[in-house]
């Protein structure tokens, strides 16, 4: 009986952490969807790019870990800006166009990473040690990832509600023309928003590579999972976290105790299908 409880606690704990990462993943995409109304198929690949950036900075250039983190974030944010000004800016009003362009980006980023880093799985070992919690121990890198994820989501939520830029973002999201009439430079809002999306994607990539391992072409899977969260949360970032947690917890709990392990990934899609078809809230 004691072991049963420890099983549940272990699953809850790890599920919570996985879920918070999913939430972070979804928040970034939700921002792009909500503010710019674009389907950013490059979201996952940008996360992978950020992860490889960290790997490169730490292992190939020998830069210290905290500095590598900051540099990766800065570089990805800049790349986000460049992508925006170079590409997205021209087609932001046309939904199908963003699909093609971001799909092209997905191919480019994935294959460039593949030719530079080869297909070997990579990971970053922070060597932080672990925390013993009685029935099980958890790596401190996982705790760090959890903290980063939660802090990021809360920070973005705070920013969108309490700062001027956040309000400008939401105004542009609600009604672009009205926002412009109110004097908001919507192009700047879009540019910065995309940059923040890239930043959030990068944060997920950093959390992921320090707790799991990656290959260059895994971006598509990330984008898919991000969609599940982003679509269901409807712009509410705290709800995004909740849905991410639900996803992470249900995946682990259900596979531990109910459905056989191979179906672990289908949980996300079943939730999505059921929610989208029954909730019937008119979205964009």
């Amino acid at each position, binding site marked *: 009986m004691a072991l049963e409880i420890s099983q549940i606690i272990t699953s809850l704990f790890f599920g919570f952490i996985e879920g918070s990462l999913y939430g972070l993943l979804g928040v970034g995409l939700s921002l792009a969807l909500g503010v710019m109304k674009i389907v950013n198929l490059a979201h996952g690949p940008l996360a992978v790019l950020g992860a490889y950036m960290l790997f490169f900075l730490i292992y190939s250039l020998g830069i210290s870990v905290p500095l590598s983190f900051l540099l990766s974030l800065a570089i990805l944010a800049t790349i986000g800006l460049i992508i925006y000004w170079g590409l997205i800016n021209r*087609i932001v009003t046309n939904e199908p166009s963003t699909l*093609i362009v971001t799909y092209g*980006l997905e191919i*480019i980023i994935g*294959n460039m990473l593949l030719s530079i880093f080869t297909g070997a799985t990579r990971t970053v070992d922070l060597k932080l040690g672990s925390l013993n919690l009685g029935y099980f121990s958890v790596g401190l890198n996982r705790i760090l990832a959890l903290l980063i994820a939660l802090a990021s989501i809360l920070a973005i939520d705070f920013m969108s509600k309490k700062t001027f830029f956040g309000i400008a973002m939401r105004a542009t999201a609600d009604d672009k023309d009205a926002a412009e009439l109110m004097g908001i430079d919507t192009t700047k809002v879009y540019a910065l928003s995309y940059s923040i999306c890239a930043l959030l994607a990068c944060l997920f990539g950093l959390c992921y590579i320090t707790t799991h391992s990656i290959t260059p072409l895994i971006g598509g899977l990330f984008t898919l999972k991000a969609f599940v969260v982003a679509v269901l949360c409807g712009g509410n970032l705290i709800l995004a976290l909740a849905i991410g947690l639900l996803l992470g917890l249900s995946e682990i709990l259900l596979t531990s105790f109910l459905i056989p392990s*191979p179906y672990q990934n289908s949980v996300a899609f079943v939730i*999505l299908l059921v929610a*989208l078809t029954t909730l019937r809230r008119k979205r964009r």
Partner: protein
Amino acid sequence: MRTTFLDPELVTSITIIIISALIPAIQNTWLTSAFLFFMLLTIMGHSWNLFSGLTRIISFGHGAFFGLGAYATFIVVRDLSQPFPFSFILSLIMASAICGSAAFLLSYPFLALRGLSFAICTLAFTEFLAIVFANTQIIERGHEVAFIQPQTDIIANYYLTLLILFLVTMVFWRVKHSKLGLALIAIGENEAAAESLGVDVFSSIRSSYVISAICMGLVGALYPYILLSATVETLFGIERSLIPLVVGLLGGPGSIAGSFMGALVFQILAEALRTTLGYLHLVVLGSLVILIHLLEPSGIFGIVSKLVKKTK
């Protein structure tokens, strides 16, 4: 609404079909194979364009119908062990039946949604089907790959595909120039306005979705005869849904000749790039896709049309 046979889209399409018919005469199996895949891709582009190109309701999940069509062929060839040519006809019929009814049933919950919700729904459905097929092993039956023995040779495959391409092209053309097509284009431009003018929105898009699904199912049914092997990843993978989308959009959304254009880039040009560029060919392809699209959002056919207009 011009339905004369001098419609530029139709002329372009028929020209390409005639050229394709002559390719095997060059006696180069590599070229023939490349064109074979080009034709398959065009049919996929047509089926996506039929629905999403005209109505502007973007579907991310056409791969589901492709996979179901391929499944139909596997049933016919493996379980029912029918001999060739009968098996081929049977698989086409079965694929149409399965995909048509699936689309019909799905249209009730899905087609009430629009925009991103619809797209994600189709995507989630395809992914879910993929997981179910992968785990129940209906197609692969315990092997890493599902396979069938060759039923036909490459020339037979080529002309069968050409035939299907011709049929689907004509279907697309007829739909586009019919009352249904008019309704779909109207819905694509402004759904509310179309509805207010008396268009039965749901019935129109459902018809289009079903026809589109059947076309995709036909390609799916062709696939095992040509490739002889398939995995759940190749049948239901997201590439299978995204590439027809890119082909359709790149070539020209809603345009019949557009699918040909897009498939030309993605198959013929891609192969030429691969053999000449080596390592980074995919990066170049991705960049080309972006460039072409930024240059002219209405697709390659749009570029060509504009060029021609300038020469007037």
